[in-house]
């Protein structure tokens, strides 16, 4: 059976939404889905080597004043970091992370080497839309 495909437009660079994306990715991995992630504007900053899992460098999309409590709760519940979620999903299923070329440049990332090792390539918007057209599930976070 052909695996189901998920296409995720990942605009966010906020730790709460990235964590949610990680949880969804885990579910997709459990179901052996093929996942294409297109990292857009704010998202590309989170994938920069100097940001990644450094929660101090990431904002909260909602309730920014509750960030410390949020992060502490995640730790107490033994929840993985967003980078760990992404990494584990990549180990289990076919997950490709494509960084939007424009987004990368906005944050000073010209080359794949400027991003954490989860990133697979630098791409254009055409790749996102054609993957989106073929996907069984489309999400935009």
């Amino acid at each position, binding site marked *: 059976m052909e695996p189901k495909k998920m296409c995720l437009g990942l605009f966010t660079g906020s730790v709460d939404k990235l964590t949610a994306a990680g949880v969804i990715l*885990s579910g997709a991995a*459990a*179901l052996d889905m093929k996942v294409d992630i297109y990292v857009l504007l704010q998202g590309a900053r989170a994938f920069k080597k100097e940001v990644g899992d450094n929660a101090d460098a990431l904002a909260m999309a909602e309730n920014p004043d509750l960030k410390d409590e949020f992060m502490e709760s995640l730790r107490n519940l033994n929840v993985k970091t967003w980078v760990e979620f992404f990494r584990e999903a990549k180990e289990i299923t076919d997950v490709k992370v494509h960084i939007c070329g424009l987004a990368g440049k906005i944050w000073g990332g010209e080359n794949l080497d400027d991003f954490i090792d989860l990133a697979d390539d630098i791409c254009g918007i055409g790749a996102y839309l054609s993957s989106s057209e073929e996907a069984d599930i489309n999400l935009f976070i």
Partner: protein
Amino acid sequence: MTQEELNKITVAKTVDARGTACPGPLLEAKKAIGTIKSGDVMEVLSADEGTKADIPKWCTKQGHEFLGTIEESGFFRIFLKKS
């Protein structure tokens, strides 16, 4: 299966995922299923309410047979047979 039958079943592997919240138990189950043989029974221990519904759905999608759940105090024992 009845609770009595589940209690007596021979389990090839027990996955203790009580230390993790959703999606931990589902992912632990996914990783462990590759280590057992077709027809073997696996038991997943989870303290996460969501797992009780997630595992049966996951079994349907993956072709494994969901056998049932035993509710213990503070956690669930979820049984499935690998396809």
